[in-house]
């Protein structure tokens, strides 16, 4: 798995999790939420975020609809589908396993 694969996998998880947490939300807000939720550590580039959103939507993990913001602007909102929810749970478990293994390795070599 190349570096970018690893990254996209993780990004997808972050997006799904954020949308679950924050509720139906547009892309801009998702980016802000991830930044905030990680204490400003993780900052997602827009050029990665929007393609990821569309990809997740194509995969059927996100649902989208056009609506209006508080300020009356027209925007595209996303929410997680049931399938997306299932995948989120499974991948989250795997992520925990992975980071455990990485931790092991880092310990031995250190």
């Amino acid at each position, binding site marked *: *798995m*190349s570096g*970018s*694969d*690893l990254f996209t*996998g993780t990004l997808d998880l972050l997006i799904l999790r954020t949308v679950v947490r924050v*509720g*139906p*939300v*547009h*892309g*801009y*807000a998702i980016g802000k939420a991830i930044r905030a939720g990680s204490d400003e550590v993780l900052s997602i*580039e*827009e*050029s990665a975020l*929007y*393609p990821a959103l*569309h*990809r997740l*939507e*194509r995969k059927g993990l996100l*649902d*989208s*609809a*056009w*609506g*209006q*913001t*508080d300020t009356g*602007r*027209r*925007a*595209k*909102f996303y*929410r997680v589908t049931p399938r997306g929810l299932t995948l989120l749970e499974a991948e989250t478990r*795997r992520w925990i*396993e*992975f980071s455990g*293994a*990485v931790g*092991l*390795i880092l310990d*031995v070599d250190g």
Partner: protein
Amino acid sequence: MSGWPFKRTPPPGSLGGDQDADIDEELEFHLELRTRELMDEGLDRDTARREAEMQFGDAREVARRIKRERRRGGAGRMMMNVLGELRGDLGYAFRTFRRNPGFAGIAALTLAVAIAGNTAVFSVLDSAILRALPFENASELVFLNGYHLQNGERAIRYASVPEFTDWRERSRGVSSMAGVRPAGVTLRGGGGAERAEAEVVSQDYFSILGGTTPLGRTFTPEEYEVPDAHPVVVLSHSLWVRSFGSDPGVVGRSVLVNERTVEVIGVMAADFAGVSLDVDLWIPMGMMSLVGSADLLDTRGTRFLPVIGRLASGVSVEDAQRELDAIAGDLQDLYPDINRDRFVEVETFRDGYLGSTGRLLWVLFGAGGFLLLIAAANVANLLLVRADARVRELTVRRAVGADSGRVARLLLTESIALAAIGGAFGLVLAAWGLRVLTPLIPHGVLPGYAEPVLSVRAFLFALVSLTVVGVLAGLAPALSSARRDLTTSLRAGGRGMTGGRARTQQIFVITQVGLALLLLVGAGLLTRSFRAQLAVDPGLEMDGVHVFSVQPSRESVPDADGLRVFTDELLRTVAEVPGVRSVAASSDFPLRGGSSGAYVFRPDDPETRIRYHRHSVSPGYFENLGVELRSGRFIEASDNQQARPVAVVTQAFVERVLPDASNGVGRSIYVGDPSDPANLAEIVGVVENIRYRNLTQDMMEESNSPDVFFSIHQVPARFLEISFRTDAGVAPNPEAIRTAVQRMDPSIPAPSLTTLEELYHAQTATPRFAAFLMGLFSGLALLLACVGIYGVLSHSVGRRGPEIALRRALGAQAADVARSVVWDGARLAGVGLVIGGIGALLSGRVLESLLFNVESTDPMTFAVVASALLLVATLAAAVPAWHASRKAPADVLGGE
């Protein structure tokens, strides 16, 4: 934010235009919000907007990308995924190679050598055999070889012209037949005089082989049928280019063939090569007198004509054989004396055309294939060892979501990448090798049209073989890595070489040793065969004998007396050239071909015809060549026209024709028709056997006619071979010889000199070459197999460090440890030897036709080769053994 009561957006991909506009709008919304935020922080609108756009990156590009991905849909995604994966894997593979240049280097080099060898052999094979024979519908072409049985073996004698006519008229299965008689001729008229290869052919020859004449025409029925009425010839394309400067006006020109005037009536197309290799011109059957006696055409008993044919449609070779067996039977009944025990064999063109060359090439191809397998096994072992070291890295990949297939694909990509690098170098090596080795291929081994260069097909073959090798080599490590249980391997500290993997390595090594043995046995057998040929006593003293041929024209030397005078004068002239010590003349020369045959009759049994080879020689001939005299004397100057006819015979002649004689001297034989007393000759000397035709002939075999020598003054010859020796330490001066000869008779073309040694060398060239190539392949195989043994043992020693240390701690001596490692290696090699040995015994038959005086199961070869292999394998095991013995118990245990 509001809830979710909005209308659903249409599914992706349905409304193209709307969707695109939506994407633009979505991104625009983002930019707007960011701009607003920045304005809140104090920037003015324009600056804020610019800042927002900059932070976003190239919004238009992102929009484009999203739209593109959307349009591509599912399949496109998968493709892009696979390609992306592949690119990533390749990049990763190359980074790995850069980090471990030693491993990558050895693997690539191993593969390069093996692929080079294979591709080179394939190129030769392809250019000589695999491509279609240069004839139309070549699968329908056959040879018809007349033979008779002697001691259970087929002695091929070909057909006589009347016999050939009978076959042709009676056969339905072979729809057309033609006689093809090869002959060497002297050609004059192109740009001087030269020796050329000709074929005397009958009607249908050109139509059977499908030749076209871009210039002029081929022969008419009259030209074939009526003897000596139409002196015409057809040239080959290569001769036309070479000696006639591609002159389109050559048709109608007169040239001299064997000193007789003939007219050129056509030139064959460039791709027409004739049945013999490298034919220069064609002569119609009616002009047989150009190359031999005219009564060859009517005598039923005089057999000399090879016959080709084309099978009728739907007729198989077996059918044709059956029909010709029946025809042969009919002829036996019709001509009980002449056709007694005479048969015909039908042979496919492909088999007869190339003869033993085809066999040799396939054997070499097989050898190359084995070498490739050995190389693949080495690389596989290397990869297995490396896979062990990469357990951690692979584990991470598995955890991150790569399934077994993914990991396997990654490893296979690596091994194929290795194979590709090796293959690229291999191709370069192959091209170089071909260029270097092709000139070494002995003349007459390959057909003239074969050009062993790296063709497109060879390139494709290399591509296919490197892919196969890459997959084979990577399969074992890929499969075993993919199946690994991650946690156990991590806990074991990454040193776990499971039993399965170790066993796989051992199997590889055993296979390598077995294959190497096969190749070595092959090389050993071919070498013994070659040396057996060298060991044959040709009956002559090889070194220092030079020879050239001369054929005076009928104009300058019209008759037999003239020939005698000419011969004497020529001998005198050459003897006077400074440096020439002794000179002799003969009607033919050993290993040069050209002997003519006739029949002798014992006076007490004039009914029995015994075939023999006749030679006319001058006094001093035998002495010149260092032939040993067994009894009586050599030909002397006193054996001239006035004296009684004499003959000198070989030992084989005496043993076969005069078995009752004590030594043959003094006996008389009829050297022609027994009813003519002038044909009675007295044997005055018996000499040791001389190998005139080739080294492998059996002098006592029936089909090998014995030799009889006459005095050249009693039986003059027009075609003369002049042989001479120079003074010690003096090299011959070809110019001086040429000048002297041409001064004597300007009509004689400039002779070209060769030596007996060169002729001898040419005879042994093919077996030497075969032994050399096989030796090369098997040497490489041995090397690779040793590298394999060394690798496996050293890895196992490294892995078993703790175990060894333990044993040392428990009291084992360093020597014991070393011995056990060597024993491991010897055991592996031993198993490989046994398996390889059985394989060699079973497959030895393949080589049989290439071997001389050696059985394919020759025990000594097997024994020598096996011992050598075992010894080398043991040495290969010695280094790891030495390392093992040096491990002090404390070091290893402490480091764990």
